[in-house]
């Protein structure tokens, strides 16, 4: 193992050599963490009562779950090549998941999906955003 030339190793495709026990343990730990967050997101999607509450559970938890698995792939594949693609996947997920969740929740509110009973829009006393405008 000590005679491995790093230039040859990098030329062979990204530097993912034989996996040692430390790297294998890190991959296992990150995969388990990602699976935990995916489970939480799925249970929240199935159990919560409303589309806004379901978005609250899924948009954060499943992003973290997929990012945990992508970090495991990054640890396994090394810093360049496929590992770099896994990091790009993480960055893309963190940019797009809040944007998509915001667009779905705004679409649901425009479609007229009701909030839970007792929930008010911020700054008003009603459950619709245009309640104060009616008083003018």
């Amino acid at each position, binding site marked *: 193992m000590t005679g491995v030339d790093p230039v040859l190793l990098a030329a062979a495709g990204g530097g993912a050599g034989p*996996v040692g026990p430390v790297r*294998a343990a890190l*991959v296992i730990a990150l995969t388990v963490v990602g699976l935990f967050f995916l489970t939480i997101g799925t249970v929240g999607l199935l159990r919560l009562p409303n589309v806004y509450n379901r978005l609250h559970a899924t948009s954060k938890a499943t992003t973290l779950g*997929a990012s945990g698995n992508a970090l495991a792939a990054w640890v396994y594949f090394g810093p360049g090549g496929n590992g770099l693609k896994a990091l790009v996947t993480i960055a893309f997920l963190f940019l797009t998941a809040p944007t998509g969740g915001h667009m779905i929740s705004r679409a649901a509110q425009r479609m007229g999906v009701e909030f839970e009973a007792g929930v008010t829009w911020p700054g008003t006393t009603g459950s619709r955003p245009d309640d104060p405008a009616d008083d003018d």
Partner: protein
Amino acid sequence: MSSAGPVVDALPTVLSGALALSALLTLAVGYRVIRGPTTPDRVVALDVIGTNVVAIALVFAVLRATDSGGNGGIFVDVSLVLAIIGFISTVTVARYVTEGDIIE
């Protein structure tokens, strides 16, 4: 590398278990796609299925790469493209529901 150690030997088993469990989770999300009361519920559930498949592709990439000679790195590309397509489809459905039109 015949003397890999117990942790390295356990890696394909753990990855296979994670693959099976996340596949079951994705199947359970299908309940919300079928039974979701409103259209945004179904869109959220399909978005979650997309994110789960991204995670499954990443786990499968590592699992294929642990096999000597297996070409697992291609599935990292698969997960990246799936993330992009999932975002585009979510934005498209949200725009279609609100505006009644996708590209005006």
